[in-house]
């Protein structure tokens, strides 16, 4: 079930010096399903924070609609309720000049909880971020990383089923980063919390999120493709397209394929990579001319414990695509090297990523 949805959203702001409207974000469509972790990737200034502010109902879009449970809070003058439902950890850490506990209690108090209830929640949230012993500290007595975790606790104390987190681990050391990632995973698993998070780390985003969406110069490159496979992936939802496939670039372990592509809409364009995790590729016997999918020749099969890694060579440029399939499937298909096979995957398995050199 869709919790949050963007429909042809455009966010713009007035450029003071030049006196005209500047477009900061264009999001043709985005659906966030209940219980999903969606990571937003993009370079600095690509519009990640703008997108998250829009999803947290902090800024009203100048065009399009932001739906929460299928309803439009801006149109119904219910943005306060929407904000309370989708609390956000903003990129900049701003603590109120009071104690750590009071900081974390603020949100619940605003929501109308009594002080003892708010205090309980604040303590639970501080415990979750490992700062239980800090509750009496002043906001001035915290390191940058601790302040970030207090800010995270402040959002957690609202105990909402939707969280919008703008780079939650920015400025944290490796251990805290690991803990926060674990916390997000745990909230998602145990309480079904829906999380939308911006991340500057591709690694973390891909390991934590169910789905990754990418911003290229303010344009939301959505991975919810209409098409069934990369083979026909020329047109993407809402009328913009990958204009020019630069071709298969390289293939790597655990991601089936990476395609360099240009994503563009009018003047906004930039390079992205389209990737599919190897575990999400389905392998089948080639069966004549069917719906678009990738066809190739089985190149290698390597059996491992519980699964097999296979490699398929695709014509016309002999790119190699990896897939991980379970042994039962391998047996059922009765494949041997040199067989014609077909690769397919769900559009939802397609990750559109900013171009990162360090694969």
């Amino acid at each position: 079930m869709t919790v949050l949805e963007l429909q042809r959203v455009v966010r713009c702001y007035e450029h003071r010096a030049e006196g005209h409207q500047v477009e900061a974000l264009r999001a043709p469509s985005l659906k966030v399903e209940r219980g999903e972790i969606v990571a937003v990737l993009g370079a600095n200034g690509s519009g990640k924070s703008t997108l998250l502010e829009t999803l947290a109902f902090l800024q009203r879009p100048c065009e399009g609609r932001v739906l929460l449970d299928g309803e439009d809070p801006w149109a119904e003058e219910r943005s306060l309720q929407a904000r309370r439902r989708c609390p956000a950890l903003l990129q900049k850490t701003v603590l109120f000049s009071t104690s750590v506990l009071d900081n974390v209690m603020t949100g619940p108090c605003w929501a109308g909880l009594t002080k003892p209830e708010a205090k309980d929640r604040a303590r639970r949230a501080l415990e979750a971020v490992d700062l239980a012993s800090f509750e009496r500290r002043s906001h001035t007595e915290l390191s940058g990383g601790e302040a970030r975790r207090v800010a995270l606790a402040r959002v957690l104390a609202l105990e909402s089923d939707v969280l919008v987190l703008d780079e939650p681990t920015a400025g944290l050391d490796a251990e805290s980063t690991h803990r926060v990632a674990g916390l997000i995973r745990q909230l998602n698993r145990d309480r079904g919390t829906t999380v939308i998070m911006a991340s500057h780390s591709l690694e973390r985003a891909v390991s934590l999120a169910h789905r990754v969406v990418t911003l290229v110069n303010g344009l939301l490159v959505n991975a919810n493709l209409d098409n069934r496979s990369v083979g026909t992936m020329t047109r993407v939802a809402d009328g913009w397209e990958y204009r020019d496939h630069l071709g298969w670039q390289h293939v790597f372990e655990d991601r089936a394929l990476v395609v360099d592509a240009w994503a563009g809409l009018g003047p906004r364009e930039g390079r992205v990579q389209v990737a599919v995790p190897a575990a999400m590729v389905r392998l089948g016997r080639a069966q004549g001319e069917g719906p678009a999918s990738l066809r190739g020749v089985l190149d290698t099969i390597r059996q491992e414990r519980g699964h097999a890694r296979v490699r398929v060579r695709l014509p016309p440029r002999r790119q190699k695509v990896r897939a991980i399939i379970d042994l039962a499937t391998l047996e059922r298909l009765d494949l041997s090297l040199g067989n014609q096979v077909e690769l397919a995957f769900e559009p939802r398995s397609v990750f559109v990523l900013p171009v990162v050199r360090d694969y």
Partner: protein
Amino acid sequence: MGTLFQALLAALRLVASLDAGVLEYASRSLGIALIATLLASLAGVPAGVWLAEVEFRGKRAVVTVLNTLLSVPTVVVGLLVYAFISRHGPLGGLGLLFTVPGVIAGEIVLILPLVTAFTLAAVSRVDRDVRSTALSLGASATQALQAVVRESRFGILAAIIAAFGRVVGEVGVATILGGNADAFTRTITTAIVLEVNMGRFELALALGLVLLSLSFGINVMLQLVQGEGRRR
């Protein structure tokens, strides 16, 4: 140098002996400054917050005028208010000229721009970040505004201190609107001018010392309040 030292000694003696004149002028100065600061703050703080919050055409012009008013000479403010409350002025019927309430009215006109402009600056400094943080945590518009004001409280307090300082040490308005009538409107500063003119240097210096210690005492008090606030 010797004269100055002797004058200082004499002044200290006067202060120590709780000279009736010194006490009277001091309490009048203090009273005028406190009431004027209180009333100007009651109007100026909300006005500053409001100006920081709203966006309207010509806001920058208003802010520029406000900042200009900060440096208007006190005698000019005195003259303007004089024109209003003198017998032939529009508010002449109120009989405010050469009375303490008249002086207070003039001082309010003097410091209102200061309180407003400094409050505006203090609120603007924290406004954006604190507001968006508050909103992101589910604050209503009113709750977010409260958070913004709470976060700028030290700046607002500084505005009030500065306003008090300006009133307590000011001569122009007090002279023009008060008339420096001994038993009615004479304040420390106007008394100092008078005593110096009359060649009574010790008394003038004594009054100066009292004025300084008044300011010092109030600033120490406010420092303590601020320190308390910071520690929490």
